[in-house]
């Protein structure tokens, strides 16, 4: 999107304009009377500085005359600077726009001195606006200036150089205390156990506290019980992963359905992500694998493509640059993907520099989708932190980028993530907005300490989570100060249950699982890592040549292997990865095919029922597409395939692990040189082994073996994070993830309330849940009311509530009654909000 640019800028100036105002010539004079007569009249309406003038300044003037620069000794950082003018005196006087130097220069009527110097002149309308502004008194709000911007949160500090205040067990509280002290504010009493438990359960694993666990916690007298609770919850590998999956899916644009999948223009990373979360992968490693991905995590930087022509600013490498900068560095390059930004100092060259890391070759820079003829230069946003080797190939560039971003000199990476956590738990970041990390934190010391403490603990995210969640700051009662003009920290703000938390909470009351795992993630494999080590064989990437991983001809090749079984086969699980796709046949029967463009996922299938006693033949037709994704297939009207000169060569390979169980014996078979490979019009020969699971560019590693070792996930699906969005979740704010979402809309809307009031999805869910509750227990009346209150609100009902709830429930309670009570409880702000 480059609305801003086009609307105000393209009309006024040519692209990539550097507006250099020359030194005011000594003999320079204002416009003559004749020239003044040619000026456009000032506009008739009241000019507003912010709406009308600031954009003109920012687009045409401030690059040379503000932010520390003052070409021609002229600066407009403030109103006083502006009026003071440059070498030749004052720029303008109130009420006398026609005679002012500035209007003379921007009017274009003095051919020898036209501002901006190198670009097209301003439009007459813009001149008319500037005139009106001068005549109306040059109103310029005091709070607005164009001072030099200093980036915050960029450079690391040494942990030992941070003065941690004494007297607090948790350094976070020391820093908060310092802040309070400067405000002469004293700590409020921490929330009670019940409130704390509900908060921390939801924040750590996304679920409401089960009544029994809550009762145990409340009954516990130990002083350290809150700390232990946090540790215990964080230690719940599966619940933690399935809660934080939502957070990361929003950030990384990962979803199970959505735009792009019809064309293979998008690739999920769920398997990788789930495993990373379940195993608490250190954050630096996590980021490195996303920035410089193997095949399992590449979906993030591949972006989302629709068929057809794409605006230059949204080409896949540009999406990668935007994603990397946004998610990991907390800066928004969307403006600067189209033109030099007007709201910060990121430039088009910055965006293209980062995008070039992901492009095959240099990109032609386009400004507002118009090619400029200039080619991009590979460059990291902050060259003071690290430089990229412009001569390196793409693999090398990506690796270098990952090294810089996760390197010790980049203080931004840990700060961005701790800020996101802080925002998540407190409703507002240390830096706000959270995607403008160049701004200072309200407590820079706290920010620095949290970030450096994370680094010092080997980027262990759970360590930082524990620090925050066990702080006294987190245990403060809710505060409403976030709405005030000047934010002061007083504690967490009231937050809303996410769509997923809402849905999970209702299902958890009835222990009602979701019908399907639409994420298809194999959680069993992720949670039981280590089984892979017990696999007896190690598969090899195979193809027709030893260097096919670097490049091979686009073609279909046929792999075959014959296998004999003496006993009947019970199960034959085949795990395959192929670049780009494959068709698997067993005994000439086609049993599986993955041919979508860009597919590089891992495919798992039980083909046992197709196997027989005696001889069996496995046939895999592997297909290496053309680099643009064109499959190896004749199109209508084609009589032969397009040519395959060397520049069409691209990575090709096939990797397989089969575990075949027959009469309680397991036979393993892997892709290796024991397979034959056959190219068109050639004889079969031994397949060529290229390397093991870690071979670049796929680097699929242990992940592949984990899936092969634990191929089936039979765990119940209890979390909304694993299923596609339903209308209820959409209404409750689950985004479609076509854009990176770092902050969800939390406010209630009428359409959402309608969905809650009469939506089919919730009605069905409540019915299923109520039927289940009645089926599972024979409690009714007061006991059932108490139970539902405990589950939903984490407290017992009051006397009046008991009476009212019984009225809803009916006597004896039937499904309709339970539904109505559940509905009423879950519609309460007390349920939907986190206090």
């Amino acid at each position, binding site marked *: *999107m480059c*609305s*801003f640019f*086009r*609307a105000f800028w393209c009309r006024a100036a040519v692209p990539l304009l550097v507006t250099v105002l020359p030194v005011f010539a000594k003999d320079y004079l204002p416009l003559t009377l004749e020239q003044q007569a040619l000026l456009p009249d000032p506009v008739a309406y009241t000019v507003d500085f912010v709406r009308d003038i600031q954009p003109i300044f920012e687009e045409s003037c401030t690059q040379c005359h503000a932010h520390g620069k003052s070409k021609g000794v002229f600066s407009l950082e403030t109103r006083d600077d502006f009026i003071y003018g440059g070498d030749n005196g004052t720029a303008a006087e109130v009420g006398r726009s026609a005679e002012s130097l500035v209007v003379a220069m921007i009017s274009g009527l003095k051919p020898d001195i036209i501002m901006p110097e190198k670009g097209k002149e301003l439009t007459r309308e813009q001149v008319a606006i500037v005139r009106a502004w001068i005549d109306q008194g040059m109103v310029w709000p005091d*709070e607005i*200036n164009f*001072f030099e*911007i*200093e980036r915050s949160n960029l450079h690391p500090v040494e942990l030992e150089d941070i003065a941690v205040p004494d007297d607090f067990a948790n350094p976070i509280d020391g820093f908060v205390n310092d802040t309070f002290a400067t405000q002469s504010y004293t700590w409020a009493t921490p929330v009670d156990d019940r409130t704390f438990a509900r908060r921390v359960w939801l924040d750590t694993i996304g679920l409401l506290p089960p009544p029994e666990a809550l009762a145990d916690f409340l009954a516990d007298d130990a002083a350290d019980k809150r700390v232990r609770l946090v540790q215990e919850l964080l230690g719940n590998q599966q619940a933690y992963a399935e809660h934080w999956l939502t957070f990361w899916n929003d950030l990384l644009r990962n979803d199970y359905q*959505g*735009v792009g999948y*019809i064309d293979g223009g998008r690739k999920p990373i769920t398997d990788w992500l789930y495993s990373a979360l379940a195993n608490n992968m250190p954050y630096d490693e996590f980021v490195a694998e996303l920035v410089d991905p193997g095949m399992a995590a590449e979906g993030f930087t591949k972006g989302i*493509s*629709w*068929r*057809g*022509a*794409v605006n230059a600013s949204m080409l896949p490498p540009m*999406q990668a640059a*935007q994603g990397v900068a946004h998610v990991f560095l907390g800066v928004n390059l*969307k*403006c600067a993907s189209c033109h030099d930004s007007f709201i910060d100092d990121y430039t088009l060259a910055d965006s293209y520099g980062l995008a070039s890391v992901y492009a095959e070759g240099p990109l032609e820079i386009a400004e507002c989708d118009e090619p400029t003829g200039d080619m991009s230069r590979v460059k990291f946003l902050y060259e003071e932190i690290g430089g990229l080797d412009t001569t390196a190939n793409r693999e090398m560039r990506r690796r270098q980028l990952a090294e810089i971003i996760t390197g010790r000199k980049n203080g931004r990476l840990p700060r961005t993530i701790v800020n996101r956590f802080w925002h998540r738990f407190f409703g507002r970041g240390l830096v706000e*907005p959270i995607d403008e990390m160049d*701004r200072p934190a309200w407590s820079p010391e706290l920010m620095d300490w949290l970030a450096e403490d994370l680094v010092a603990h080997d980027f262990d995210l759970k360590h930082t989570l524990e620090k925050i969640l066990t702080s006294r700051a987190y245990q403060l009662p809710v505060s*409403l100060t*976030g*709405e005030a*003009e000047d934010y002061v920290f007083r504690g967490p703000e*009231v*937050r809303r249950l996410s769509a997923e938390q809402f849905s999970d909470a209702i299902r958890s009351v009835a222990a009602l699982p979701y019908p399907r795992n639409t994420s298809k993630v194999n959680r069993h494999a992720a949670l039981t890592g280590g089984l892979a080590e017990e696999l007896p064989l190690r598969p090899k990437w195979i193809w027709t040549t030893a260097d096919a991983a670097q490049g091979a001809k686009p073609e279909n090749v046929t792999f075959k292997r014959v296998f004999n079984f003496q006993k009947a086969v019970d199960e034959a699980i085949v795990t395959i990865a192929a670049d780009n796709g494959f068709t698997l046949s067993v005994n000439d029967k086609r049993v599986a095919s993955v041919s979508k463009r860009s597919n590089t996922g891992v495919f798992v299938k039980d083909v046992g029922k197709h196997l027989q006693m005696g001889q069996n033949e496995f046939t895999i037709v592997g297909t290496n597409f053309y680099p643009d994704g064109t499959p190896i297939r004749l199109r*209508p009207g084609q009589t032969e395939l397009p040519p395959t000169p060397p520049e069409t060569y691209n990575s090709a390979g096939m990797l397989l692990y089969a575990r075949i169980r027959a009469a309680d014996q397991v036979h393993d078979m892997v892709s290796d040189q024991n397979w034959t490979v056959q190219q068109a019009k050639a004889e079969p020969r031994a397949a060529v082994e290229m390397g093991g699971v870690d071979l670049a560019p796929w680097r699929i590693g242990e992940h592949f073996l984990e899936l092969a070792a634990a191929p089936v996930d039979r765990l119940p699906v209890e979390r909304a994070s694993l299923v596609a969005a339903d209308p209820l979740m959409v209404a409750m704010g689950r985004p479609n993830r*076509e*854009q990176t979402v770092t902050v*969800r*809309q*939390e*406010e*209630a*809307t*009428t*359409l*959402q*309330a*309608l969905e809650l*009031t*009469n*939506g089919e999805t919730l*009605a069905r869910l409540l019915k299923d849940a109520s039927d289940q509750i009645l089926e599972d227990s024979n409690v009714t009346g007061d006991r059932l009311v108490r139970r539902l209150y405990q589950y939903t609100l984490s407290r017992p009902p*009051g006397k009046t*509530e008991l009476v*009212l*709830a019984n009225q*809803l429930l009916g006597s004896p309670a039937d499904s*309709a009654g339970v539904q*109505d009570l559940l509905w009423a409880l879950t519609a*309460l*702000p*007390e349920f939907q*909000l986190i206090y």
Partner: protein
Amino acid sequence: MNLHRFFAEQAFQKAQPQLDSRRDFLKKASTATLAALAAGAPRSWAADAAMREIAPTADRVIVLWMAGGMAHTETFDPKRYTPYRDGLSSNEVLSTFPSIPTAVDGVHFSEGLENLASVMDRGTLIRGMQASDLGFILHSRHQFNWHTGYVPPQTVAAPHIGAWIARTRGAADPAMPAFINIGQRFNLGEGEELKAFTTAGFLGSEHGPFNVAFPEDAADAVRPPEGMSAGRFTNREKLYRQLLAESPIGEGGSDYQKESLLRAMDNAHRLLNSPSAKAFDLSLEPEANTRKYYPAFKPGTRFEAPRDRMGGKYEEGMIGRFGLGCLLARRLCESGARFIEVTTEYIPFFNWDTHENGHSRLVGMKRMIDAPIAQLVRDLEERGLLDRTLVVVASEFSRDMMVEGKPDNRITNQVEVPDVINDPKFYGMHRHFTAAGSVLLFGGGVKKGYVHGVTADERPCKTIKDPVKITDLHASIYRAMGIPPDHGYDIERRPFYVTPDGHGKSVDALFRG
């Protein structure tokens, strides 16, 4: 605080001077904009600029969406008719139906649109709509472009035109959703792509859409859930209120999260209990009226035609669904809806997406739309609503037998068309044509009996006079609604306009002076 940091803060503060505090905003905000309170929520950009005010000529818009690519030469811009015969040369065929006269001298439609022809004297016909060049035809992507004005992918979620209007003009009746979308399911082909533009996007979900897939079931959307009696529903609500009062953080105290939640619940109940809700209930319409939209109507009709791509029968089986959608649109207009879209429904290879059997399919499609649209126009007129209701009949692009894309900017053919036709399934406009397209407008200030633009009478039947880009068509719709083309809202501190870059120009020739 060191000086640098001080300056840095100063510098950043200047960057967002428009930012009201949430508290201030809350004070000023109408109910409808409460949803916009989220951090980073859109703020009006040019809304209060007096210089940009234009007087609306319409108070509501109905878009009748011909989903899948409606061939202009087969509908509102007929050319030479070539009947089917074996051995027919494809290139010879421009129209597969004869022309019929309309109520306007010299203006012809294609056979099968007799009812619409009879109301052409109330309408304006644009014949030169120019779909954008997107490099490749993907229906949902062109539909995205038509409905938002933007081409995906976008860095922020672009709002549907209905959401722009809902956000800017608000609901005409506070109990009625401002943006209602009728007739589209999202679980069929390209459903995810359709969702991508059937959204209020960054404007926030308060601004719609309110989706009604089957008009005959519309009442379900505004009454208690299935199986719940009115009495039970009322009782549930009553006891909820009492429980709310008992909840320790119930009515007492104050925070804007809770306020917004309770207000939303109130609004929802207000709609469910309001007289406006009855507008959704087609069973309340006299049957005689309903039959004007759908002659074969019987109470309890459901639309469940099997989708058979080859037979061309699906469209026949769906006749009536769009008609009931038009009837529903009329009822909603009467009850204060602001923006309504009724679609023939986009399903890949069905309805207007005539990849094969183009001719026989169109017989059904015309029956699907002809009577209902004409009746909608007549009914609105009779009720005195037409003058202030802009009705827009449009499609994402047109079709042609031979040309994919534009004649001078052709793109990869996606449809096989033989040089010589020996099977009726090849008889029809099967390729995707973007160099012309018909848009029919009624009411809302547009001229009556006016034709804008001319297309060539021989292939390529492209626009040769007065082309209208989608951006400018949008600007015209916005103009009718009193919204300037450079009206917009801030998102992530950047302005985003109703027409891309604010550059749409309304086609003033369409409007009465």
